[in-house]
């Protein structure tokens, strides 16, 4: 089906993307006005993690809201799956997955050269942020098992349409965040002696900017596709 502006899917996508971009914008403004770069790496003094968490929550709620409309087209399997989202097992699994993911990211950070003893708090914040950008939305949307299946298996059949739309967009977010954090290290060896070159800051900012880039890419793709359809239709 050709994408149109007034279609539900396109609306969902655009709302979703604007939330993501707004989050990055808010984070960057916050960092800009906070003045003190060293706070970025601490858990309690920086608001970046809560802001990102809120935005991910908002995105999931958005997907939930839109999935109400395709309630009637659900299959038996999908209904069954849906019912089990809030079971204790799923919640525990989700939390465990989150924790494992954070540990894994921290492990990778340390292997790639993050200081071990003196900067563990900063490493933890970075890992938490990456986990928030990559796994949290999926886990919140589908629960632990579902998220795993999505990550490591071919596409399962219990996913509804709106969920699928959200997942596609989460993917851009996640890839952007990881690439951005990875590329952020590029400023670390430079001898400019700026205070923002200290360890977690370029990576945190890189993750946020990477997210923004991923979202902008997704946004332009969607807009291009819609505009294409729109223009072509007009001609005939």
């Amino acid at each position, binding site marked *: 089906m050709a994408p149109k502006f007034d279609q539900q899917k396109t609306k969902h996508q655009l709302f979703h993307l604007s939330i993501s971009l707004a989050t990055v914008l808010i984070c960057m403004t916050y960092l800009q006005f906070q003045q003190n770069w060293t706070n970025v790496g601490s858990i309690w003094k920086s608001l970046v993690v809560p802001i990102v968490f809120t935005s991910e929550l908002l995105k999931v709620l958005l997907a939930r809201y839109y999935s109400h409309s395709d309630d009637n087209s659900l299959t038996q399997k999908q209904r069954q799956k849906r019912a089990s989202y809030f079971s204790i097992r799923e919640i525990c699994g989700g939390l465990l997955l989150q924790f494992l993911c954070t540990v894994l990211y921290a492990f990778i950070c340390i292997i790639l*050269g993050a200081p071990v003893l003196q900067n563990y708090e900063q490493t933890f914040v970075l890992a938490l942020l990456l986990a928030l950008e990559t796994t949290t939305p999926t886990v919140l949307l589908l629960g632990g098992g579902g998220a*795993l299946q999505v990550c*490591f298996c071919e596409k*399962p059949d219990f996913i509804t349409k709106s969920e699928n739309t959200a997942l596609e967009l989460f993917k851009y977010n996640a890839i952007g965040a990881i690439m951005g954090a990875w590329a952020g290290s590029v400023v670390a060896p430079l001898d400019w002696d700026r205070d923002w070159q200290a360890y977690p800051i370029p990576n945190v900012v890189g993750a946020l900017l990477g997210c923004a880039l991923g979202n902008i890419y997704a946004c332009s793709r969607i807009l291009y596709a819609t505009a294409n359809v729109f223009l072509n239709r007009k001609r005939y």
Partner: protein
Amino acid sequence: MEKSSTIRYFLMWMIVTFIFGASIFLTGFFPINNYALDHAVAENQPKDLDGLSLTPPTQIYAQTILMLVDALRFDFASQSGMEFSYNNSCNRLKLRVNIPTVTMPRLKSLTTGTISNFIDIVLNIGHVEQLADSLMHRLQVRNEITVFAGDRTWISLFPKQFTRFTANSDSFYVNDFYEGDKNVTEVLTKELQNDDWMLLVLHYLGLDHIGHVEGSDSSKIPIKLKEMDDVVLKLYKAKHFHRQLLILTGDHGMRDGGGHGGSTAGELYVPLFVLKENCTTKGSSKANEYNQIDVAPTLAILWSMEIPPMSIGCLIPELLHEFSLEDQLFAYYYNALHLMQKANNKFGQDYVNNNAFSKWFITAKSAHKQFLLEKRNNNFENAFIFEDSKIHYIRLAREISNQLSDSLVQFDYGLITLGLALTTIVVLNALLAFCSATDRVFIHGKGAFLSLLAFAACINKWCHYHGYFTTTGTMSTVVILLAIMASVYMLINIANLLLRRMLASNNLQISLPNQIWMLLSCLLIHTLTLASSSFIENENKTWHYLGASALILLCVQSFQKELLSYKLDACINGVALYKVLLRNLQKLQTSFLIIGGLGILHRLDGASSYLTQEATKTWLSCIFVAGLLLYVLCLRKHKLVQTRKELVIYLIAAMLIYCYRASKGVVSSVFDTNCCAKIVLHIFWMVVIIAACISTVILYTKRRLSYQIQHTLLAGCFKILLTLLLTICLLLHKPHNVCLVAYLIYTLSLCYELCGKFEKNTLRTSNYKYLSKLLCTILVGNMFYFYQGNSNSFATIDLNPGYIGQTSYNPIIVGILVTLNMYSAQFIAFLYLITHILQESDNNKTHDLSANEHIDFIIYFYTLSIFVPVLIYLWLLLFFRYHLFIYSVFAPKALYEFYRVIVLFFTYLMTTISLYIFDQK
């Protein structure tokens, strides 16, 4: 077989030509300065002039104050900037400094009167006391009291020469604008009371720091200049100023933005103010221009000392006015004589005799003589003859000085262009030939080569005619001819290849799997980072970051692929999913261990200084033992040895290595084995030889027992070679680095395993089958090269392994051992890849001959992967030739890269020769 041998010959010629081109480039870039190296004994002051006896002038000023203001550029010392100094100076001169405009080389120029060029800075890296002879050394010999206050650089140049010194704690801490200068002025106040010194050097850093941090337009600069002016005023008002000479100058200027180190006008010109009491020429407006190297000989004359032997400067006439006419002429004569001798040494007698300045010298001398005769006989100072003689002396000194300094620093652009052209053409040719699978060499026959030679000779002649090449002599002519021939030949080759390409008109379509693109982009990123000096300094981090990221990504991808193969769609049940996940994670534990180990190894070099202390000897011993055990385990696990017997022998070898280190006292030992290091070493070499023999014998008996195809033998031979290399590397490595040897093998095999998973279905028969493995090998080899503690500065070259078991200095053996130790990771990695390929083709048993093709492909690609970064780096070097860090960072890296190509040549020879030998059997 036929085809592979042509490829190998082609490659060898490519490598040799590339090395040739790169050496031409480097010779052009670092013109070797022979006569700075011969530390000529300073000739004494001349006693006579063609029979007339001369008397050296006596020192006029008992005390001299040299006040250096860092980064004082010419327009800072103006009427508005430093009012008092400007109005009260007897002479205001303009000095032109030479590149590099950084403090250390400038101080050398000020005190020795010579220009430092690239190669002696490169050669002198690591030496603290770089100067053999200078004004300070002379003063020390004369037992004068010299006092210094200010920048620490002086102390590293002259650690023992100053009688009293106060140095700033850290000259590179740029945020200190005032504190350091205040200290200097305090010293000054004290010394003015003290009054026993002959020379007082003050080096003020504040201005430079302000420039670095706030730029040249900062509001703090006028304040700073005022402060400096006040210091001058204070000196001027001092009690003993009537017998003091105050010289105020800067070591280098400041760029408009605030930094320095380049070659803009702001950086190149500094003022030189001379202040003394009752001077006659106060306030003359014209500022004559001199060179900074002129200061050293002038000071030598003022202090009535010998001119520093390396000086190539002229005298500054304005500073000599206090002398009598006779003494002035003596000074000019002395300096002219000194310069004539320098010119004789540098350019040769013939050149000097034919040049105009030798005629001037004769004219000046005869006028000088006439003046002296009239003075002594009639007691009449003929001012006209004096001027005649003086002008000729000055003119000739200026001319020689210019010629000498030109010959020192100038890049030889002719050679640079030639070298760069040759290397670029080689790389282009190799790349094109790599892309097209057709024949690689096209022109044959004597006639073609003779015409090429004639053509090259024509080009050579033309270039000489237009002055592009300035070399003389048979050797350099031959070299240039050869280089031109090679470039023209390859140019024709390239044209030929391109033509065929166009005629064939089949577009090259490369469809490579994702992971190969990823690995290739890692190499590309590394090449790009070569453009930044910070990245060159931290290249170990770059390689570790890229390599570890690539490994992690490979690991994750293979994990995902594994899970995908389970077809989990069927089970929605979460529990089953978790179980499968956990099981797969368990399978991954070795990869996790190895990747985690990389994180530790990355920090190994930093920990090495801690580990080598006496207190941590036990820890070091543990690590050493662990490394040796890991090595034995690795031999067993990766089937590098065939039987238990060999394993035992290698175990003994490992134990002997431990004994050797214990006897050297590096690791703790049970017995007192201080004396028997040599015996242990002898036994070690015997054991290694025995092991090699036994392995070979076992290989052959096995072969006789069972029918096996040819490659088993080849793989076996390579395994023996690899094991021997590993064992020798164990001996050469520092104790804490020993674990790297075995770890390298583990990491490589993990990489191959991961890459192998992707290549199961695709690329089965393609040439690209081993490409991802090769890329991994390059990444891992470089990672381990830097884990070992190597870096891009000459300070980290470990010379100790060169002297293991050596009683005397033998440059060849030392060179081989040091190279083997330094580049062990790359040698081992490459050899292991070859062994792996041979082994694989063994196991498959399907493609009989294709292993050879694969190896050719691998060698070819490996060569290209080194050629391309080196070529790009040479281009970068050309663009960065005036960069601030050209000596400290880029030039050493250039020599490292050059040596890298030579090591590639050794690797290539080692591989092909052993392939050739073992293939025969």
